[in-house]
């Protein structure tokens, strides 16, 4: 086995293959990034309407709750195939990359909406009432009062979901998107030993996700420190 590694090393470790891996890495990263940023925006809009109290929006609210509950319970792989065949069946010529992005956006919206809702509910009710007294509209209350305070509850879990989606995108290799996992499969199929091909794949995923995990932990600590005074004041006002 070690002999095989030594034999294949000159074929495997070349500049062109390195560039191929790099491009695959960038595809993975950009898919996760596009999916999560768009999902974050959609999630905010969804939560804004879901927490509204206007009575004629009730059907919309029920629809949004159903959306969140259903899309958090469909496996990524099944939804990828569903979107792929649905887009072909109804005649949208999306490229495979965009099929993957749409899938990630659909699932990320549901997951992140739940995180944002939990974050917004963690802000004390007094803040809503204070803003009401100051004659803030609902949108302004959300934007200037609630969101800045719920940031500390939203960002750390949302960041760890972003890292989870980087790993989840490996499943889109099944529809043929050229990302990191497909690169591993390609090298395996041209005869490189599977330990080397998939091992490189594992290492690259690790190199992508581990620094981000550490960064996420630092962001969490910094946010907690920044909001420490704020939180203490809030818990003091509770008593």
């Amino acid at each position, binding site marked *: 086995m070690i002999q095989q590694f030594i034999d294949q090393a000159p074929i495997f470790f070349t500049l062109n293959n390195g560039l191929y891996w790099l491009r695959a890495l960038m595809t993975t990263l950009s898919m996760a990034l596009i999916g999560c940023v768009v999902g974050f925006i959609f999630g905010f809009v969804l939560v804004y309407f879901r927490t509204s109290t206007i009575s004629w929006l009730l059907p919309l609210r029920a629809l949004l709750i159903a959306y969140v509950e259903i899309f958090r319970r469909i496996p990524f792989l099944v939804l990828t195939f569903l979107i792929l065949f649905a887009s072909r069946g109804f005649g949208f010529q999306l490229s495979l990359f965009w099929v993957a992005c749409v899938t990630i956006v659909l699932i990320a919206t549901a997951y992140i909406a739940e995180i944002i809702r939990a974050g917004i509910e963690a802000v004390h009710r007094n803040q809503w009432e204070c803003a009401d007294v100051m004659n803030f509209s609902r949108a302004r209350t959300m934007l200037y009062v609630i969101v800045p305070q719920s940031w500390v509850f939203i960002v750390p879990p949302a960041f760890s979901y972003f890292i989870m989606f980087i790993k989840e995108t490996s499943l889109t290799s099944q529809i043929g998107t050229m990302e990191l996992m497909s690169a591993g499969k390609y090298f395996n199929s041209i005869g490189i030993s599977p330990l080397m091909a*998939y091992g490189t794949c594992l290492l690259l995923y690790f190199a992508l996700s581990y620094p981000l995990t550490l960064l996420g932990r630092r962001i969490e600590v910094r946010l907690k420190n920044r909001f420490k005074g704020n939180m203490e004041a809030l818990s003091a006002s509770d008593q």
Partner: protein
Amino acid sequence: MSYTFQWGVAFDYLPYLLGGALVTLHLTFLGFLAGLIIGLTTAVAQVYGSPIMQRTANIYVVFFTNTPSLVTAFFIFFGLPEFGILLSPYLCILINLALNAGAFLADVFRSGIQSVKTAEMEAAEIMGFSLFQKVQYVISPHIAKTLYPPISNLYIIFILGSALASIFGVEEITGRAFNVDSETFRSIEIYSIAAIIYVLLTFAASFALALVGRYVFRVKARMF
């Protein structure tokens, strides 16, 4: 709207797909059970082990939480035969799910162990408990109660994650959907039905877990 739905063809295969749900359930159940044991052992090693054990446990957890479970599955599926070990696809996926679940559960368990009050641990120390007895009589009851909701959430996520078993030819819901799809070519209908089965399955699992939590562990588990 150029696509005409033909649900009848797809519904003929409904019992076959529902049979796949059974495979999914016992695959994830066995994998998760093994994961619980691995996770608890790893977490205990991380907190109470010797430095070498702590280091090993940390490497295991960091490695498996930071790599996609699909890639580790490929690594196990195609890597083990290189060492002369040939396993069935089902067993490969089971090992992969157990190792992945173990790493994620170890993280959860570790925070649970650290949340046990020091006074309780000191009391156990005075009673002359061994490490195993401490885990059995002090840590486990505490963990069972406080960590029940996050662990049941993780189980739902693992049901969804087990869909990747279909790639290796295990005939669970998604795998059977592949088979039916290649026979009938009614892709949209088949995958919609598969998605609906997953939604119902996870709802049923959440409900069952919430009931078990309420009556066995006295946890106020929320379904949503």
